[in-house]
């Protein structure tokens, strides 16, 4: 898969209104192949013929539940699944079953939260097969495919893997504060005890992308919390 938007996505949800709005949402986000199923039987039939790349599973279905469906799917496939549940208790149950869902979203959810989680799961499962994205920071552009920074004067520089990971995480939540813990998790896989190292990498990243690194215009510090990648002004 070159682009996560090529992924086949199967929405299993018995409420037609929710199923409709979720499919529409996913479609609008650029995912081209989205189908829905309202029952376990429909879902299994669709799974056999259409080979989805991601499942969005409601727990309570008219002819069974999402956990059993996931269990039977897991016998033949490791396709990623996001559980959409209307009950808080389901998360504990899911953990208890050890079914290995890739994420868990409680209803009601914010649409952009669901989309973010979907793209995170897809990217994690199918590698960084996301279409090469570029981040525009004023006159500077960063190619997130190659990690190359191109400045207005034509000079260019490459980001280190850590700097790349930081910018990528910030760019995915552009305009929103990302906490130091979350940033450290995306860079080192663990959120604890990397505060100073993170500061060092952020400083180097700023030296590469900011015109005035000591007075940053793009990578803004949220004091005590984390960093925010400022949105481009329209």
């Amino acid at each position, binding site marked *: 898969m070159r682009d996560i938007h090529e992924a086949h996505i199967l929405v299993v949800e018995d409420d037609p209104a929710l199923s409709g709005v979720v499919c529409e949402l996913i479609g609008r986000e650029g995912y081209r192949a989205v189908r829905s199923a309202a029952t376990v039987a429909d879902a299994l039939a669709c799974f056999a013929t259409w080979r989805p790349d991601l499942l969005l599973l409601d727990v309570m279905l008219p002819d069974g539940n999402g956990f059993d469906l996931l269990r039977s799917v897991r016998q033949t496939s490791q396709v990623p699944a996001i559980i959409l549940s209307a009950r808080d208790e389901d998360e504990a149950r899911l953990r208890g079953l050890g079914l290995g869902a890739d994420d868990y979203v409680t209803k009601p*959810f914010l649409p952009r939260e669901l989309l973010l989680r979907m793209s995170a799961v897809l990217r994690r499962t199918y590698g960084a097969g996301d279409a090469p994205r570029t981040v525009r920071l004023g006159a500077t552009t960063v190619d997130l495919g190659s990690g190359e920074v191109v400045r207005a004067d034509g000079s260019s520089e490459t980001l280190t893997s850590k700097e790349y990971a930081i910018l990528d995480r910030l760019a995915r939540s552009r305009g*929103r504060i990302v906490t130091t813990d979350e940033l450290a998790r995306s860079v080192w896989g663990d959120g604890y005890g990397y505060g100073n190292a993170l500061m060092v990498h952020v400083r180097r990243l700023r030296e590469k992308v900011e015109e005035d690194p000591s007075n940053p215009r793009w990578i803004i510090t949220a004091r*005590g919390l984390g960093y925010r990648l400022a949105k481009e002004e329209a």
Partner: protein
Amino acid sequence: MSRHGLARVREALRILGFAAVFAVAAFVTNVLVLGFYILAFGSLDDGAPNVASAEIERLSEALVLEEGTYRLPDEDIEALAALGAWLMLIDPEGNVAWSEAVPADVPDHYELGDVASFTRWYLNDYPVVTRVRDDGILVLGSPPGSAWKYTYSIDMNSFVLSVGLVLALLISNMVVAIAVARAYARRSWAERDRARREWIAAVSHDVRTPLAVALAEADTLAHDEDLASDQRARAQRVEGKVSEVASLIADLNVANRLSYAMEPVDAQPVALAPLIRSVAAEALNDDADGTHPIELELDAEAEACRVNGDAVLLRRMLSNLVGNSVRHNAQGCTVRISLARLPRRLLRRERCLLAVEDDGRGLASDMLQTLRRAPSDELPEHGLGLVIVRRIAAACGGTTRFSEAEGGGTRCEVILPVA
């Protein structure tokens, strides 16, 4: 039979079952108490001379000596004959002085020993009762097998002990009855609690799916570039309100889970500092116009602070606290969150103090009163969010204190034991 009818039959059977258990328990207890009593205070069977019945008293008065001859009225003779009974008077020497319908096998002379024996037991198998008169002993006999002669007597000491025994039995049966009734009540309360809990869970489940639809639709409109900006703003307000309802449902669920304590808190060491940052970042991200800045005070010690609890619940507690300050101060306020370890006290677990404070307009005094009262199982009519803060803190072994901040806003302190 309808489901309702079946349930009633089941309930009736259950009550019968409990009653049977109670009866058996009471009986066993009574036997035990009786056994103990006999062992402790000895036999109750301590005989004493019989007391003549009312019948022989009447006959004794009716039998009179007239001109050297004893006479009994005719109706009494008839009554004796109808019953097959007989009557005789034994003089002080032991000879029968007068008799009526006495069977042939009854002797006409008695020694002291004979008298002592029949007064208590039988005279030649005839059950008899006696009455002592000035001129001798009147003996009333009944046909053999017509009465079970039984002498019951009790000395004063035994009588007092018997009253004690009855009281002891009564009290022990009452104790058993209360124990059984309590067990029954507790079971039915537990069932009712479970039913209520499941009902709330079911309602909130059913509410969440339509809420998800409403939220998604409102969000779609709010980001629809084809709409005019005021229409988008309107959709955004709808989205905000739907989110509030969603948050209320989540609070209700947490309260539901905590108040009936059916689900023990899934306690694990949770680092508070990242949780605080995450909640603060979320609140700041949602604060588009920047009217609710958040200041954090986390020193190195606080960074390392872990408490035993459920991360989801602790997060809910923090976001409720921050959300409360934001919601009650729409015009804007600064929220200050601080976390510090408390000095260790002798024999006490180490604790930390989490404080969330704002410089807004503060809580209404009645709400403060409610929050200061000891936690009860009843949910308040409003202000569910802060009550849940208290419940979550309690579930993690902590305490809360709500007060007025120095600048007039609200201050909430949560003290939690360090893991």
